[in-house]
């Protein structure tokens, strides 16, 4: 089956991609295409030009910077991120979240940066990037800038990106390499399905040891961190799990949809935060 009509151009550099967008507003950047082509097929989006960014060498690599931070390019597929030795060693929570998206064939094409730009409230990689204090680099018609992942999501399918801005990479700080924990994810079936509820609970074993992170997926208009729940666990560890769970239940803003009711989601946020805190406790014993 053919998709509706559009033009296609493969850019060789970021500058070329952005300048093509400038010549043809209404264009869309194409990375893995697993969300974009699906949305085009159902008529939700109808870009006149697809600007393929996968032939841009700079965007196709995972690179360690001289300061030890790790840069993941916009064209790197989820499978390659999950298999990367540095990601697995330093950021196992991100590797875990990357393997929870779709199924293996989808992850051959789908990219992490596409996952965050699609800005589903259920984005599995977003919770890990929030917990790891990641930062996105964007390049657009009016220049380049850095956007903290904490400031990236503004609503369902909405981000703080300006028209024509292309996310070129996401940078994971070296300082975040000590975060360990678990991502609990409920879905109707284990493969392919979007999360009904996702809860990540992590603790730092590296820089600033003993600090916690609590990040939620599928229970608010955007992926969400709950700093008050984190502070509660920071002060009292696993003993504070019931209180942290209560805070997270209050912080989430779930909706009822075909995957679950708002009441179920809220209840499960509490259950999974307690379970996550208990898992951290077992890990240190």
């Amino acid at each position: 089956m053919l998709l509706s009509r559009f033009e296609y151009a493969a850019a060789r550099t970021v500058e070329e991609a952005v300048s093509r967008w400038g010549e043809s507003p209404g264009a869309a950047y194409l990375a893995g295409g697993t969300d974009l082509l699906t949305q085009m097929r159902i008529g939700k989006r109808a870009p006149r030009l697809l600007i393929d960014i996968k032939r841009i060498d700079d965007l196709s690599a995972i690179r360690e910077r001289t300061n030890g931070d790790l840069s993941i390019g916009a064209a790197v597929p989820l499978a390659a991120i999950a298999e990367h030795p540095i990601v697995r060693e330093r950021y196992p929570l991100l590797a875990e979240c990357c393997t929870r998206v779709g199924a293996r064939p989808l992850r051959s094409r789908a990219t992490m940066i596409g996952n965050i730009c699609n800005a589903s409230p259920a984005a599995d990689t977003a919770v890990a990037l929030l917990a790891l204090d990641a930062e996105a680099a964007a390049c657009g018609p009016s220049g380049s800038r850095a956007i903290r992942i904490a400031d990236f999501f503004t609503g369902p399918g909405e981000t703080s990106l300006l028209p024509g801005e292309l996310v070129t990479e996401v940078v994971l700080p070296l300082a975040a390499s000590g975060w360990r924990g678990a991502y609990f994810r409920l879905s109707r079936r284990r493969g392919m399905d979007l999360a009904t509820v996702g809860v990540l609970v992590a603790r730092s074993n590296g820089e600033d040891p003993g600090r916690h992170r609590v990040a939620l997926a599928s229970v608010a208009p955007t992926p969400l961190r709950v700093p008050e729940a984190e502070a509660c666990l920071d002060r009292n560890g696993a003993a504070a799990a019931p209180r942290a769970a209560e805070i997270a239940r209050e912080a989430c803003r779930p909706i009822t949809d075909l995957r679950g009711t708002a009441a179920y989601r809220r209840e499960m946020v509490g259950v999974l935060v307690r379970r996550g805190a208990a898992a951290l406790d077992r890990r240190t014993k």
Partner: protein
Amino acid sequence: MTEHTITLRVNGLEESRTVPSNQTLLSFLRDTLDLTGAKEGCGEGECGSCIVLVDDKPVNSCLMLAVEADGCSVTTIEGIGDASRLHPLQSAFLAHTAVQCGFCTPGMILAGLALLRENPSPTEAEIRSALSGNLCRCTGYRQIIDAVLAAAAAMRGEAARAPEEKTG
């Protein structure tokens, strides 16, 4: 609309064709090259009946444009065996009655092949995970998982267990 000339290898043979921007790789394989093994089920990457290998990685060919495959190497079910010389996975699917209507089978076999190339000794859980993007409306999956386990053993050079021996 723009057209693009692409050159790629399909099942080992070089093909050079002109394709419209909006043609999917699946449509290119089926409608242009007449390789109808890969099927369109959902057209949204949910069912896996369109899975082929692109540069040895399993992909949903319904969610990839033909123009994106320029320079790539594509393997379809037609490239891994034929009636006179079945691939061990194909033999195992027959031996285990893992084929009923057959619509999902090419995708199942290519997803299984991608797994076995990366991991020649997968556990049942690893097989279930690798095939979680493939839907089958007939078999209930048990026979398919058994077939992949048996094919893995055969490809490792171990004697294949007959399906009957597994009961009881």
